[in-house]
C-alpha cells in the first residue's frame, strides 16, 4: 500500500465501509438478475456522487475536490473488490479527464459541474473494432457551420446507453493508423444523427455500439492534434481501471484463500496441500508486484511525470496478467462449486476478461511498453 495522507486514508476507509455495507457482491448480482437496463444501479451511483466520489479529480472551481488520481484509485480499488458497477470510471475519471485536460473554459464550465454532481454521465467513444487501437480511428469529422459533422461507428462504448455526453475520437485529416489528424469531439448522446445499440456483455455491465450519421460534434482541444490529449486521457482511464482490477483480484484471491482453509478433502483442509499452497504463494507475489505498478502509475499521473505512459502500460499489462491468473485459479480451486452461477467465482472471471480487454489488453500494453522504450 502506498504511503497515504491522512485524508486519503479516511477516503479509503469510508469507501471500504460504504462498499461493504451498501454495495456487496450480492448487490451486483441483484442488479444483474433484474436485467437493469443501464448495467448499474442508478440509486447506488447517486449515493456515490453524494459522497463526492464523482468529483475527486475535478477542480474545485467546477464542483470537484481535486483530490487526485491516486485518491480516486483508492475508491476504485474498493468498488472493484465487490464488482460494484457504475459510471465512476468511464464518466468521473475517463471523460472528465478529457475535458479537464483539453476543454475550453466554456466547455469545462458546461460539463464538469454536472459530471461532478453525478447528474451527467459522460464516456469515451474511441474503439472502432474488436481491439483497442486508438490510432486506427477512421470515424470522420468534417467542418459544418460553426461545428463539425461526425460520421462513422464506435464499438464497446462503456456506459454507452447511460451516457448523456460522448467524448469521441475522430479523424479530421490523414488516414487510419496515423496519429496526426485525430481530433476529439464532444457529442450529445441523444443528439440528431446518433444511434446507440445496447450490448449484452458477459460481465453484465453497460456498453453500447454507437453509430454517427452526420452527428454534431463540438471540438475538444485542437483540430488534428488530438492524439496527445487522447493518449493522456486514455492513460488516466487505464490507470483507474487497473486500480479497479487490483481490488477485484485481491477479493478473488482472498475469497479463494478462505475456501482453501475450510474445504476438507482426504481428511484435511485442501489448503494444506503444497500443490495449492505454492500456487497461492505465486498469486500473492503477483498481487504485491501488481500493486506496486498500479500505485506508481496513479502517483505518476498526480505528479505529472514524464514516465506516465510507460508506467501505465506496465500497470495495465501486469494487473491484467495477475487478474487473469487469479480469476482462473478462483474457479479452479473452488472446484465444482466454482462452476455454478450461485457462486461468485464466475462473476469475477467474467469481469476479469472484460476489464482486461478494456482500454487495451496485455498484448497491446506490452507492445506499447516496448515501443515507448525503443526495444
Amino acid at each position: 500500500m502506498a504511503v497515504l495522507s491522512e485524508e486519503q486514508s479516511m477516503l479509503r476507509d469510508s469507501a471500504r465501509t460504504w462498499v461493504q455495507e451498501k454495495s456487496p457482491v450480492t448487490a451486483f448480482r441483484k442488479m444483474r438478475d433484474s436485467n437493469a437496463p443501464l448495467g448499474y444501479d442508478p440509486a447506488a451511483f447517486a449515493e456515490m456522487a453524494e459522497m463526492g466520489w464523482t468529483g475527486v479529480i475535478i477542480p474545485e472551481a467546477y464542483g470537484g475536490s481535486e483530490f487526485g488520481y491516486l485518491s480516486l484509485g483508492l475508491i476504485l480499488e474498493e468498488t472493484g473488490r465487490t464488482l460494484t458497477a457504475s459510471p465512476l470510471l468511464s464518466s468521473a475519471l475517463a471523460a472528465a479527464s478529457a475535458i479537464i485536460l483539453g476543454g475550453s473554459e466554456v466547455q469545462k464550465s458546461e460539463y464538469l459541474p454536472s459530471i461532478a454532481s453525478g447528474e451527467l454521465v459522460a464516456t469515451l467513444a474511441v474503439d472502432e473494432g474488436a481491439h483497442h487501437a486508438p490510432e486506427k480511428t477512421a470515424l470522420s469529422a468534417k467542418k459544418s457551420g460553426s461545428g463539425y459533422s461526425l460520421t462513422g461507428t464506435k464499438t464497446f462504448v462503456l456506459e454507452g446507453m447511460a451516457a448523456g455526453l460522448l467524448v469521441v475520437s475522430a479523424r479530421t485529416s490523414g488516414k487510419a493508423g496515423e496519429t496526426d489528424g485525430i481530433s476529439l469531439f464532444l457529442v450529445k448522446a441523444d443528439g440528431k444523427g446518433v444511434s446507440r445499440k445496447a450490448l449484452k456483455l458477459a460481465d453484465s455491465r453497460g456498453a453500447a455500439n454507437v453509430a454517427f450519421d452526420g452527428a454534431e460534434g463540438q471540438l475538444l482541444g485542437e483540430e488534428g492534434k488530438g492524439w496527445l490529449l487522447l493518449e493522456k486521457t486514455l492513460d488516466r482511464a487505464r490507470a483507474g481501471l487497473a486500480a479497479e482490477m487490483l481490488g477485484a483480484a485481491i477479493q478473488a484471491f482472498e475469497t479463494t484463500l478462505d475456501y482453501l482453509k475450510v474445504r476438507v478433502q482426504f481428511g484435511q483442509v485442501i489448503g494444506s496441500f503444497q500443490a495449492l499452497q505454492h500456487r497461492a504463494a505465486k498469486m500473492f507475489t503477483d498481487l504485491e508486484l501488481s500493486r506496486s505498478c498500479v500505485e506508481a502509475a496513479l502517483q505518476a499521473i498526480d505528479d505529472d511525470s514524464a514516465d506516465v505512459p510507460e508506467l501505465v502500460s506496465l500497470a495495465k499489462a501486469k494487473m491484467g496478467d495477475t487478474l487473469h491468473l487469479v480469476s482462473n485459479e478462483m474457479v479452479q480451486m473452488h472446484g465444482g462449486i466454482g462452476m455454478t452461477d450461485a457462486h461468485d467465482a464466475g462473476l469475477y472471471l467474467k469481469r476479469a476478461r472484460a476489464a482486461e480487454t478494456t482500454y487495451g489488453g496485455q498484448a497491446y500494453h506490452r507492445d506499447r511498453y516496448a515501443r515507448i522504450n525503443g526495444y
Partner: protein
Amino acid sequence: MADFGGDIDAFRTEVRDWMEANYPAELRKEDGGQAMTEAMMGMPPSAAAKLWRQRVGEKGWGVPTWPKQYGGGGLSPAEARVVQQEMGRIGANNPIQGMGVMMFGPTLLEYGNEAQKQQHIPSICKGELQWCQGFSEPGAGSDLASLATRCEDKGDHYLINGSKIWTSGAQFAQWCFCLVRTDTTKKHEGISFILIDMASPGVEVRPIQLISGNSPFCETFFTDVKVPKENLVGPLNGGWTIAKRLLQFERNSLSGGGGGAAMRMMFGAGSLDAMAKTYVGTDEKGRIADGDLRSRLTQHMMDAKAFTLTLMRAAAESKGNASPSAATSIMKNAGTKVGQDRAELTLEIMGSQGLGWEGEGFSSEELGAVRGWLGGKATTIYGGSQEIQSNIISKRILGLPDPASAQH
C-alpha cells in the same frame, strides 16, 4: 549525528565533502562491480581499496545505522540514505561487505550479549574480519532443522564434531557462525547458535568447484573442535529462533533489499535491449529484429520494473525502518526470477558467442555472461530455495496449514 539537529541538507553537505576528500582517486577509474566480484571471490583488494575500506570503516558509514558504541555510524535511517546516495553519486561502492554485515551483525546486535557485541561488532564495522555461515549440511539443506553437527558440553568448553556444506567464503573467513545440535531428542528445540574461530584446531575447509567453474562455497569439517562456552549466542537449544531471524536478513539482502550494489550484481549494469539490437539486428522500424525475442525481452523488462517498483514501495512503507518483515520472502522469489531470466536472455541474445568457456574468440563480457548464468542458478537454491520461500509465504503470510501428516 545528533548535532545536526535533523538538518538533512547540512548533513548531506558534510557527507559530500567527506566523500570528495576521502574516496581514493585510483578507485574512481575502476569498475566498482568488478571490484566487488573480485572481493567476493577472495581476491586481495588493491591498496586504494584497502584505504577506502579503512576510511569508511573508521567513520562507521559502512553500517550507518548500527550503534556508534560498537563502531557503527549511529545515523538515522534518513541520514543513512544520504550516505548511501552520496556514495552512489561518486560511483563508490560500500567497502564494508560480507556476511558479517548482511546477516550476522544485525542478528548479533539483537541476540548477542554485551561481551559478544563488544568482541565482534567493531571488526565487522571496520571490515577487518570475514564471517562464514555454518548452516547447511550434506543431510540438511531445505530441511535445515534436521542438522546433525554435534555440540557436546564438556564442562569448561563445548566440543564440536560434524560437517557443514555450502559455507560461502569459508576459505577466507576468520570466524564462522554456526548452527549445532545440542539436544538429539528434539528437532528445532535442540539447535544452538555458536561462534567458531576458524583457526581452531580440527577445522578443515575444502572448496567445492561449481558448474560455473568458481569455488565460492566450501565444505567445512569439524573434528573435536573445542569452543569456549562464552561463544554460545542466546540460550542453549534456543538457536532456531536466532537462525530464522538471520535468514530473514539473508533473504532481504539476496532479494536486492540490501541496496544498489546487490541489484547491480544481479541485474547487470548494461542495457539488454541495446545488446539485443547489436547481436540480433534491427528491422526496418529499428526494432529488435526477432519478434519473439523482442516480446520476451519486453516481458522481462516489465517484470524487472515491477520488481524495482516493489522494492521502492517496500522502502517507502517501512519509512526507513531497516528491519525486514515476512514480506521479504516475496522479494526473494521475485528478484531471483528476474535475475535468472536476465541471464538466460543474455545468453540467448549472444547466440553461439554466449557459449564460450574461456580463451580466445569471446569477449570478456561474453565469457562473464556464461559464468554469471551458471553461477546465478544458485540464487533460487541458497538462502532458502524458491520452494522453501513459497512454503514460508503460504504458512507465515497466508496462514495456510501444514499437511496433516507432516509434523513441522
